[in-house]
């Protein structure tokens, strides 16, 4: 097991190296380069030269890359040209929000997707089945800004039940320690703040969760359909087990194996930046930071975030594989 984990972590090295080369090359290939981006349209050639000298950009690309790598190894990914903060600091500020949002979205997607997928499979061909297929498609095909608009119109504007954007009500005086607002609220016993932070997750969580929801419904449905035709389900029925036992122990348990992989992959995708959702919900997470960085050509931040997110992505996949091994004794890692 440990070997497996170490092995996977070691595999991360070539990925990160490749990715950093790619990113580095990409940024150097852009017209204008970092200096132009930082100094803006007004920059004279002398300004650019001065800037390049200051930040060592006049050196050969290989030297620059080496320096970049050296710093990156110490978790120093440079400074955001937009906010002037260290990229790592910026990430630590932004990631907790995204993580909270992702967790909420996945809880939403899983909580609804699995039962719905199961139901659709068991009522194969019925209206529940067809409407779950079409409904999940709606989830994928509705552009998020439109969905966000509708959700907010209903729940924030018309009904006034839920906050429509942001991470926490500005009128609540909350203490932030970890930047996980929910966790902070619990830690400081500011339960109203924690609850408020949870409420703020609902609408963006739903908007973000629709795609994983749709995919989970589909995979669950397909997987349950496969499993109910398996011989061991027939065996379980032949043993006269109660329907509930058959469902829980023999159908759902096995049907969830492929679903768990999907859940992991989707979590990885969501973590790497819900750019649009965070933007339309003014949610201070990684996604909106990425978008700001793009809009402002904040290359250091892009570079750093993408590298860190790649690590996150791989780690999530590693977790998926490990949990898959835990769920399925056949592939238990050695």
């Amino acid at each position, binding site marked *: 097991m440990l070997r497996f984990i170490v*092995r996977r972590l070691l595999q991360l090295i070539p990925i990160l190296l490749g990715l950093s080369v790619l990113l580095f090359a990409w940024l150097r290939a852009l017209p204008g380069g970092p200096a132009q981006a930082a100094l803006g349209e007004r920059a004279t050639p002398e300004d650019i030269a001065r800037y390049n000298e200051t930040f060592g950009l006049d050196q050969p690309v290989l030297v620059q890359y080496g320096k970049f790598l050296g710093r990156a190894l110490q978790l120093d990914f440079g400074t955001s040209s937009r906010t002037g903060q260290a990229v790592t600091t910026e990430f630590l500020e932004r990631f907790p929000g995204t993580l909270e949002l992702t967790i909420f979205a996945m809880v939403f997607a899983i909580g609804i997707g699995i039962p719905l997928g199961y139901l659709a499979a068991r009522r194969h061909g019925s209206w529940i089945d067809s409407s779950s297929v079409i409904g999940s498609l709606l989830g994928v095909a509705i552009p998020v800004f439109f969905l966000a608009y509708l959700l907010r119109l209903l729940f924030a504007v018309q009904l006034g039940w839920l906050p429509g954007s942001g991470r926490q009500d500005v009128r609540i005086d909350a203490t932030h320690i970890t930047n996980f607002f929910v966790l902070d609220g619990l830690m400081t016993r500011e339960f109203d703040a924690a609850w408020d932070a949870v409420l703020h997750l609902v609408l963006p969580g739903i908007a973000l969760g629709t795609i994983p929801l749709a*995919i989970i419904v589909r995979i669950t449905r397909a997987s349950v359909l496969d499993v109910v035709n398996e011989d061991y389900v027939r065996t379980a029925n032949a043993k006269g087990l109660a329907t509930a036992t058959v469902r829980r122990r023999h159908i759902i348990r096995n049907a969830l194996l492929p679903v768990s992989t999907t859940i992991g992959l989707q979590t990885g995708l969501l973590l790497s930046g819900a750019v649009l959702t965070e933007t339309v919900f003014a949610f201070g997470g990684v996604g909106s930071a990425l978008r700001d960085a793009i809009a402002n050509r904040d290359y250091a931040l892009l570079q750093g975030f993408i590298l860190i997110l790649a690590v996150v992505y791989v780690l999530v996949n590693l977790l998926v*594989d490990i949990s898959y091994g835990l769920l399925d004794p*056949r592939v238990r890692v050695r």
Partner: protein
Amino acid sequence: MTTEPTSPASGPLLQVQGLQVHFPIRRGLFVDRTVGHVRAVDGVDLSIDRGTTYGLVGESGCGKSTLGRAILRLTEPTAGKVLFDGTDVASLKPEPMRHMRRRMQMVFQDPLGSLDPRQDVESLLAEPLHAHGLGGDKPAIARRLRELLDAVGLPEAALRRYPHEFSGGQRQRIGIARAITVEPDLLIADEPVSALDVSVQAQVLNLLEELQERLGLTYLVIAHDLAVVRHISDVVGVMYLGSLVEQAPADALYEAPLHPYTRALMSAVPVPDPVLEDSRERILLSGDLPSPANPPSGCRFHTRCPWRQETRCDDEVPVLRELAPLHLVSCHWAEDIRDGRLLPKSADEVAAIQGVSVGPTGADQPVDSMIGGVDEPVEFR
């Protein structure tokens, strides 16, 4: 339709000497290291005379298919020689090897799986001709295909059909037809009938015999059903855990099996004859086939052998020796068993003595999570 005149029948067509196939078990931190071997085939010698049939039996996982494939170099042998008509197949370079394949063909166990589902019968049968540049022009090829279909008893209409449209027996006929398209000398049939119903099985067996007669083919037939093997073989080899334990002319083997394993195997085959079934003595073996990755020491069969003796069996590897003319056996006590000087123990006794333990033979395929579960990358959120 005759085989091209073979060189004066000097010696056997196929000779296998000390053939080994070891599959490495790889495991490792960053770079895979080999931590052990599955000894699927572990030193097999055999030879097959022209125009005869060699039957190979043994239990699942004992290495029959691997041996068959290694002979055709579909799996690379680890060691040993495969002399086909005097040429060492194992040392041929890829292109000469490809040409050599024209003379040695294979019929597979799973008739459907071995036919490309996307090819119709015509292109299935023509493919080997094209591959070896045989068959001449179009009309000639068409003629040849018709001959082939005729030989395996399929109507001409079959040409434009696809494998999934045929019944199991017909599919196997197609597989056989394809194998004989290039007029091979040797045909290795890996469990050609075990996927078929008995009545169909009989049809295919008859077909194989008929073809041998007409074309002078040499067969290596692999099967786990002793009755089938006996039915078509001149010489039968019995394999256990990667090695031959007994080899003899079919009749001799069935009349007087010498190796304990052969005896057990024979007594275990159900016979459609209640009288015989009720009367015959059963030799039940305890436990399962040990793992070829970790074979028992000494005589490989000693963990399940009802005749196992305290001496020799556990640590001394028996060699294949000729006990009667052409009758080879690898058992230390073969003479004593034959002459009834040793009596078998019951399966329970053996199990008790051996403290049977069987390693998992189940599949532990590595799961590449990257292969599974790919989904649409809708992540534009």
